[in-house]
């Protein structure tokens, strides 16, 4: 136990835990609906767009979290517009957005030619550099995301499972889809500094599919997936600190380990 309490002597670790715990709660909340919609890769696509936001933030000297939120939200809105109106499959849109976001980020980085080290922290996460301002932004957005999901849980659930029936039941499906995509974008932006752009999808999806293996019911699967994510973040942060490993990558590997363990236990 003292291994954990020792960590809290350091301010940066306290902030890291707070950021990690908030992301561990909202990531699987959103991820559960992404798994139902078979859109697990959208977090990865948006995280690449988020890099563009980071690059612009660093370029113009604004907190990159703010510019990231701006860019991912706009992109999420455009993705949903194309998906619902243009008869293009979600998979094809993701195949376009993912390299497109990365390409634009690379061009901006090349133009700036000066923040390569900084961009590295956003690519792979740098939870130890989370500032107090970041914590407030992450907490505020976490409350907004969690609150909206909780209040409109039934509408999000119905639309995710069965869009046609939801529409005939009087649910404004298009509005719900747009709001949901914006929540995904916000979650990606918030989670990026914790686990890194390249690893966000893992924290949003792996705890969900781990939970779905062991529970009977959708609502309980959300609760259990949050618990798995919290465990991954907690164990991941402690391990990374003492083993001197990158935090984001360790968190993701712990969540994969939990998935493997539950798979084995379920088969025994």
């Amino acid at each position: 136990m003292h291994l954990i309490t020792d960590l809290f002597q350091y301010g940066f670790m306290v902030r890291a835990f707070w950021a990690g715990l908030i992301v561990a709660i909202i990531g699987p909340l959103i991820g559960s609906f992404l798994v139902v919609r078979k859109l697990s890769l959208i977090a990865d696509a948006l995280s690449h767009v988020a890099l563009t936001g980071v690059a612009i933030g660093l370029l113009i000297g604004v907190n990159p979290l703010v510019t990231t939120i701006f860019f991912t939200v706009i992109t999420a809105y455009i993705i949903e517009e194309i998906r619902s109106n243009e008869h293009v499959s979600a998979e094809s849109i993701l195949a376009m957005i993912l390299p497109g976001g990365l390409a634009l980020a690379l061009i901006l980085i090349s133009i700036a030619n000066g923040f390569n080290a900084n961009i590295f922290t956003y690519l792979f996460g740098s939870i130890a550099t989370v500032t107090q301002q970041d914590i407030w932004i992450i907490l505020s957005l976490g409350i907004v995301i969690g609150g909206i999901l909780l209040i409109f849980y039934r509408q999000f659930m119905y639309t995710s499972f069965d869009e046609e029936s939801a529409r005939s039941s009087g649910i404004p499906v298009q509005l719900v889809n747009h709001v949901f995509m914006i929540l995904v974008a916000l979650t990606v932006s918030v989670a990026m500094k914790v686990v890194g752009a390249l690893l966000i999808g893992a924290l949003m999806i792996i705890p969900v599919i781990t939970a779905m293996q062991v529970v009977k019911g959708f609502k309980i699967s959300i609760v259990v997936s949050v618990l798995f994510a919290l465990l991954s973040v907690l164990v991941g942060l402690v391990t990374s600190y003492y083993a001197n490993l990158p935090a984001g990558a360790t968190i993701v590997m712990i969540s994969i380990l939990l998935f493997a363990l539950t798979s084995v236990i379920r088969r025994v």
Partner: protein
Amino acid sequence: MTTPSVISLRNVTFGYGDESILDGVNCDILEGDFVGLVGHNGVGKSTLLKIILGALHPQKGTVKLFGIPIKQFHDWDKVGYIPQKAGFSVSHVPITVEEVIKMEDVEDNAVDEALASVDMLIFKNKLLRELSGGQQQRVFIARALVKKPKLLILDEPTVGVDVRTQEKFYELMQKLNHNYHLTLLLVSHDLHTISHQVHCVIQLDKKTIPYETNTCNIIHAHHTDAFNH
């Protein structure tokens, strides 16, 4: 006494770009009708269904549900809809039968009542993916019934199900139509099977519904007479 209209289509015309899908469709479905809407694959049945459900708007003509123009119609609790592939895409998710029904905004006792009406109450806590195709279909029928609708629309309800399941399905439809006076619209490409089960058939052909088959008035009048006697 005139039987109230549930679905009324007047000169409904629709197309994508230059491609015409529906051209001057007229149709009346009255309260208590048990109707089959049939037509070959690609003839425009799904498009017509989307227009009836307000998901698409016709370029010309009018659509009324329960006598109200579709754009002003908000009482969707009166309409139950079961899509063709309901449930097929969620086998990867552990969702219970109760959770499926509760996608509608209803109380616990309404859930039990709806499941009982399709003989599925004992499966309330089961996972949807643990049920057979026929049982899953009954769950989706229960979800559509939980709001106590006046009209139930089913898109290709018997595609890919065996003969025994089909028979049980049509028994259930007869029960719902007879006992609850529910207006039923079944959409199918299989004229042969459906024509033996429903009270009348509306046929979509060459972008329209021929005048002779665009209403079930005669049969309905017969039913009303029988009811009155």
